């Protein structure tokens, strides 16, 4: 390298401006780093139907929160692609968290959970928000168990879902059941059809958009079956990110190398899950694409390039599994069920 000037000449000679006009077919070599989503059916079998049924109820139950007003679905609305479309969410008594709510769709396939990877899977993750003081704000695991045990229908459902244990109503099992439900929140799209060989599943414009995406260097971090969700990377790796208030994974590891490292988000359903980035401060997908090009690869994209990529990204929008996410009837409260508390 180190002969920079020669490098420039070479670049010119080879016409190595790798971007340029993108054709409407996709070279198979570029697809090596991509894969379709796994089949939903196989995931379903692995987790067990009864756990899923229980998990669905827990997911929708606001009585897992102190105010009895907030459920997982408040911030991750399943009919809304698993998000609330807010920059940051309203939690207990309207408190705002400091990060944007990511989608729960396909989240179980991420290599770690949360923007900073502090939970290893969805089962472990689900135990976080219930006790988080700015989210659902329950004060202890015991308090949660008291609520659940006050309703015989819950006790029964836990017994069915976890037939081996003597006392199945535990906080861990709550996490496992919610996780089981989340493991089937998978949204295959036309992109998967295309990857499985159906050339007609994408339009010529969408194919050209993918080529622009690759030519712009985005595949360095957004690859695999989720187009993300499988590595950490520093935000602002090529050009510093202006907002440095959130140190990212550094908070978890205290290691200097992890400062401003975040999990690279999946681009599945990206059109529907704005606003963008960990702060939720970027409102539109076009802006997000331009920011990425500028700060992660050091390129300024043309409006046409941005438009083209956005067109392709819309093909990543999958189908919401309407039947699977239907809100179930919740167990009835009894006299023993604690009353909501919004006082503190």
């Amino acid at each position, binding site marked *: 390298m180190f002969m920079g000037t020669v490098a420039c000449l070479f670049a010119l000679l080879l016409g190595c401006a790798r971007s340029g006009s993108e054709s409407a077919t996709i070279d198979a070599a570029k697809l090596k*780093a991509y894969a379709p989503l796994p089949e939903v059916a196989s995931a379903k079998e692995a987790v067990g139907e009864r756990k899923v049924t229980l998990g669905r109820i827990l997911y929708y139950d606001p009585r897992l929160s102190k105010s009895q007003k907030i459920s997982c679905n408040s911030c991750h609305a399943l009919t809304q692609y698993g998000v609330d479309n807010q920059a940051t969410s309203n939690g207990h008594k309207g408190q705002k968290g400091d990060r944007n709510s990511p989608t729960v769709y396909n989240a179980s396939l991420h290599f770690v959970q949360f923007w900073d990877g502090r939970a290893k899977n969805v089962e472990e993750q689900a135990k976080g928000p219930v006790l988080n003081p700015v989210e659902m704000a329950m004060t202890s695991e015991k308090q949660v168990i008291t609520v659940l045990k006050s309703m015989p229908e819950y006790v029964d459902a836990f017994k069915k879902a976890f037939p081996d244990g003597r006392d199945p109503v535990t906080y861990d099992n709550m996490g496992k059941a919610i996780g089981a439900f989340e493991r089937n929140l998978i949204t295959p799209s036309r992109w998967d059809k295309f990857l499985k060989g159906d050339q007609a599943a994408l339009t010529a414009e969408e194919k050209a958009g993918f080529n622009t995406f690759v030519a712009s260097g985005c595949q360095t971090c957004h690859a695999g079956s989720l187009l993300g969700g499988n590595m950490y990377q520093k935000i602002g790796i090529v050009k510093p990110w202006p907002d440095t208030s959130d140190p990212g994974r550094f908070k978890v590891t205290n290691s200097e190398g992890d400062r401003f490292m975040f999990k690279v988000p999946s681009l599945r359903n990206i059109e529907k899950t704005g606003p963008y980035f960990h702060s939720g401060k970027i409102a539109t997908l076009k802006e997000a694409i331009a920011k990425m090009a500028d700060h992660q690869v050091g390129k300024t994209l043309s409006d046409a390039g941005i438009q083209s990529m956005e067109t392709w990204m819309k093909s990543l929008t999958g189908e919401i599994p309407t039947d699977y996410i239907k809100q179930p009837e919740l167990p009835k409260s009894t006299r023993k069920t604690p009353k909501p508390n919004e006082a503190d």
Partner: protein
Amino acid sequence: MVKKVLKYGMGVLSVALIVAQFIQPERTNSPADLAASFDAVAKPPREVAAVVARACRDCHSNQTEWPWYSRVAPVSWLVASDVKQGRAKLNFSQWNIYSPEMTRIKLGEMCGEVTKGDMPPLYYLPMHPVARVTPREVSAICSVPVAQAR
């Protein structure tokens, strides 16, 4: 007259070049976190570790060896930009950021680049002849077992 302009021009140019030397790009060689490195995390076969150290490390790790001419502007700017781009694409000092799926993808890309002869870049070789990758080494890179690599 022509002479005068030339003289003046040379003067301006040398001043500009001298001033340029003071605009030094950031040349981080951050304390390489050994536990996070390709060698520690992927435990590659010895031959692969050796070729990476010899032929890739200058641009794809935090352990760049900066040669003298990399300190002279404007070459310094170009070199720094290359290293920055290279590290952003692949950093052997930070192999702990990848999931197993991404590890497989990155190994695939490494195999692809050395097979095509695109890496290390041609312009690097005249000054670093030892960075040439042999066909044997190419096949070693292409057959790093993924299970082992993470």
